[in-house]
């Protein structure tokens, strides 16, 4: 019933207009039981009983103790990831972002507040590896030049290619340079 009414409004007011012109109510007030949509519950145990016979239930008492409810609240997960509160020290090595001023580019942290540097493989256990730096705003090419210099300084013998996707704000390195790039970007405060 409610669904039909809602649909009538959403799809346009023509139906309602017709009602007013003809002076009759075309919306049926009750739907016959045969048209009721059967509901499938996710679990057998949580589906309601067919008959609501309260004599079938065992006895129970209702508790509204706020002390007990605190334990329930501790069990429920946080709905969204919040910004980490500032702390005097971070033993894990993680640092909050402290971007340098007047940088031509900006690297946005991920939703988990980590650096967006990833290792990708062409196939799940393949040997061809790519390092991808994502979420780059501003001058991607300046960052690419900087990172190329860092990798060639650390691995002078390595021959690697880079690929810049300017529209997506991504830089791809051929090879595994995740730890080098992460260490460098962290040292710069990204």
């Amino acid at each position, binding site marked *: 019933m409610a669904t039909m009414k809602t649909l009538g409004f959403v799809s346009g007011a023509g139906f309602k207009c017709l009602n007013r012109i003809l002076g009759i109510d075309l919306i049926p007030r009750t739907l016959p039981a045969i048209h009721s949509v059967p509901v499938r519950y996710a679990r057998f145990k949580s589906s309601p009983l067919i008959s609501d016979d309260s004599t079938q239930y065992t006895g129970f008492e209702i508790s509204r103790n706020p002390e007990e409810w605190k334990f329930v609240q501790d*069990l429920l997960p946080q709905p969204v990831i919040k910004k980490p509160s500032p702390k005097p020290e971070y*033993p894990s090595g993680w640092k909050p972002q402290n971007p340098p001023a007047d940088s031509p580019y900006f690297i946005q942290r991920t939703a988990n507040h980590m650096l967006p540097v990833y290792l990708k493989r062409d196939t799940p256990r393949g040997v061809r590896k790519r390092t991808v730096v994502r979420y780059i705003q501003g001058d991607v090419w300046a960052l690419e030049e900087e990172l190329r210099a860092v990798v060639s300084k650390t691995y002078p013998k390595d021959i690697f290619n880079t690929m810049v996707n300017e529209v997506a704000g991504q830089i791809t390195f051929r090879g595994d340079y995740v730890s080098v790039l992460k260490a460098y970007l962290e040292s710069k405060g990204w």
Partner: protein
Amino acid sequence: MATRGYEKALSMLKTLPRVGLFNIAPNPGFVKPSKRGRGQHGGDKHGAGNKGSKARQNYMRTGYETSLRPYYLSFTHEPYYLGHHLKRQYPPLSLGQLQLMIDTDRINAEKPIDLVQICNTGLYKINPQCKHYGVHLTDEGADSFKAKVNIEVQWATEPVIAAVERNGGTITTAFFDPPSLFALTNVKKFLESGEPIPKRMIPPEDAISYYTDPKMRGYLADPDQVSWERLVLAQKYGYSLPKIEEDPNYEMLTLRKDPRQIFYGLEPGWVVNLIDRIILKPTDPELQEYYKG
């Protein structure tokens, strides 16, 4: 106007024609042609040769060495991995990862940490259907572990226990049976289902010795022996054991679950109603006896 980066693309869009259904396209090479050809030779072998594993499954079966006797068949039966699919597994979580979760506020170290808190971060993968029985806390990052926690894990080793207790924290190893694990790993779904909290079963025969061992801080071990072993471990690893009796968080650090309990503060048999924010407790003596015993 930005001269480089995707801001340039956005500013270019201002003067470009309107993006519509008719002028969008996928990346080059995104749409792959159908593998099966049509026409005169469409019903042929599709480049897969004639018969055999290459035509049918495109890869050889594991261990097959073309025409030689496979290595795994050249020796008699050696049952190293007999029954491996039935053994309990404990997906690892390192102390470094735990410290990172605490540093980024994904876990609150001011409250007791158990499987529920670790799963609620969304960063730890566990599936009780794959014989995963809980967390194995590993010693990677033990040197830089600085948090003072009351943690309950399902498997731990001696260096891990030392790393936690050195900071003034406490650790317990506890066993949970699969029905309890389903409730612990997705606690929101469990509480919304309106089922009574299950009671924790005792560990299987081969795990009894581990979970009653005070050296492993088993949850069935004698508490007096556990405090003795805390001193012994401190002397073995050469650190002075902080006195948790004098700690302001003494209540939190010594909070433990009953061997029949799976959630802190909530007893088995209770039903939690999240909508009305009430807890239903059974009064039937038969049920009470079942959940207590």
